[in-house]
């Protein structure tokens, strides 16, 4: 599998990363190298092996339904690029 320049631009757009035209060729080479490395995994025969979602052989830990967090609007908003009173403020997004 190898990526063409259009796919590289699309991936960048989906990830909201600005890529200048001269960078596309370089990224294409780098991404293809990564894909080539991952391709090696296809050499392993995994027929009949259940997909693995984690390396840890343990059960998912669950939490009780108790309120233990929140009530810290100032701390949550502290890193906001922009705010208005108790709200985050962002460039207008409206349909």
């Amino acid at each position, binding site marked *: 599998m190898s990526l063409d320049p259009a796919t590289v631009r699309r991936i960048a*757009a*989906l990830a*909201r990363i600005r890529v200048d035209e001269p960078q596309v060729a370089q990224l294409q080479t780098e991404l293809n190298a990564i894909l080539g490395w991952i391709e090696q995994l296809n050499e392993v025969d995994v027929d009949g092996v259940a997909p693995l*979602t*984690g390396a*840890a052989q*343990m*059960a*998912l*830990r*669950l*939490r*009780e*339904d*108790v*309120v*233990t*967090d*929140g*009530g*810290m*609007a100032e701390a*949550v*908003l502290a890193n906001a690029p*922009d705010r*208005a*009173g*108790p*709200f*985050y*403020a*962002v*460039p*207008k*997004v*409206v*349909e």
Partner: protein
Amino acid sequence: MAYVIEGATGAWEVVIGLEVHAQVISRAKLFSGAATEFGAEPNSQVSFVDAGFPGMLPVLNRECVAQAVRTGLGLDAQINLVSRFDRKNYFYADLPAGYQISQYAHPVVGAGRIEIELADGTSKAIGVTRLHLEQDAGKSLHDQHPAKSMIDLNRAGVALMEIVSEPDLRSPEEAGAYLRKLRSILRYLGTCDGNMEEGSLRADVNVSVRRHGEPFRTRCEVKNVNSVRFVMHAIEAEATRQVAVWEAGGTVDQETRLYDPARGETRSMRSKEDAHDYRYFPDPDLLPLVLDEAWVAGLKSGLPELPDAKRARFMGEYGLPFYDAAVLVVEQATADFYEAVARGRDGKQAANWVMGDLFAALNRTGRGIADSPVSAAALGALLDLMADATINGRIAKEVFEAMVETGEAAEAIVTRKGLRQVTDTGAIDAAVAAVLAAHGDKLAEYRAGKDKLFGFFVGQVMKAMAGKGNPALVNEALKRAL
């Protein structure tokens, strides 16, 4: 009669599937310990997990899983003992992490069904494809500032159940019945409050049209339609639009559209064009969710009686017709109220009073069944006064209105107003004699064969007795005298 859209070139069938997002009733959020309560100060119920801070670990709330399983059981659905959480990647200002934790390939609940009732008395089983757990997004306010949107993350991370139906619905009516039935089941289960105004129940509608017997054509998704009425309108508007496109020789593009209730039409959401590439992958922060069979069985044994079972029981136990039973079981509070009135009494009569006089009084006073001006016990006592012939049916209506007005007990009103039914045959005979004497002309007509006048005489006698005569005794006395 099957619902169709009549186009210029003939009839078109409408195919509808619904995706419902139901907010789970829980104290804390799906993956964080922040509160879920509606209407709190902006951003006051937000943890660092909800705000997408780096390095924060989501920890699954057991009760949210239980609620999803209860709902699955209530929909007669398969419970998947192993399910998994995935990241659904997209960028939006109210989604701080840049992805929503959802369940894609392995939902917690598989195929189920919902039985809907239609106006013509028939019912139909609608397939449920799946139910999965996911995080809600934050809330954007667009009208506070000319150039900016305000974001409140209190809702971000609250647990949602996405409930997807099969494309089994064929009319706006069926879609409306499906939503109402689903809401009723969720409310019985206590897994979602079903409040569409506050957004705890939201629907996306998939609509396509086709000629009868054809395979499915391309569908469009109409987003976020927030009342049963709007869902029904949106389907009709979107189906009509698609028929016009096909008939003009065009093709319907698969796209996301928005319903505009003010204009009664749908329009394309251009911003969503790219959004279908969500690049799902298993969330590396979360292990697979493995449920214990015994735990699921325990949840199952704790389920309440659901609307369909209750309706069947009301029909059998209280002799109610299908329609009455279906109306009474929609809300659990109404069903409980009815049952308290009906127990040990005439079930059909109890249904008539609850659905007739009581519902009318609630409408008029703007109150719900929970704060009804007349309690179930008080209405039952009124029915008892009729059953033991203390008052007749007409007086009972008058007493009921006074009960709504004053909150007094039926017995007290009857005594205070002297409304006790007259069963003294002497008094009834006297009233009959007086009426016949006063209407000699009518009496002659009656005796000449005008039978219909019997009703007139009954009315006159009742009037003379201020409505308090025992109707059966009045009839008897009149027949004798005439």
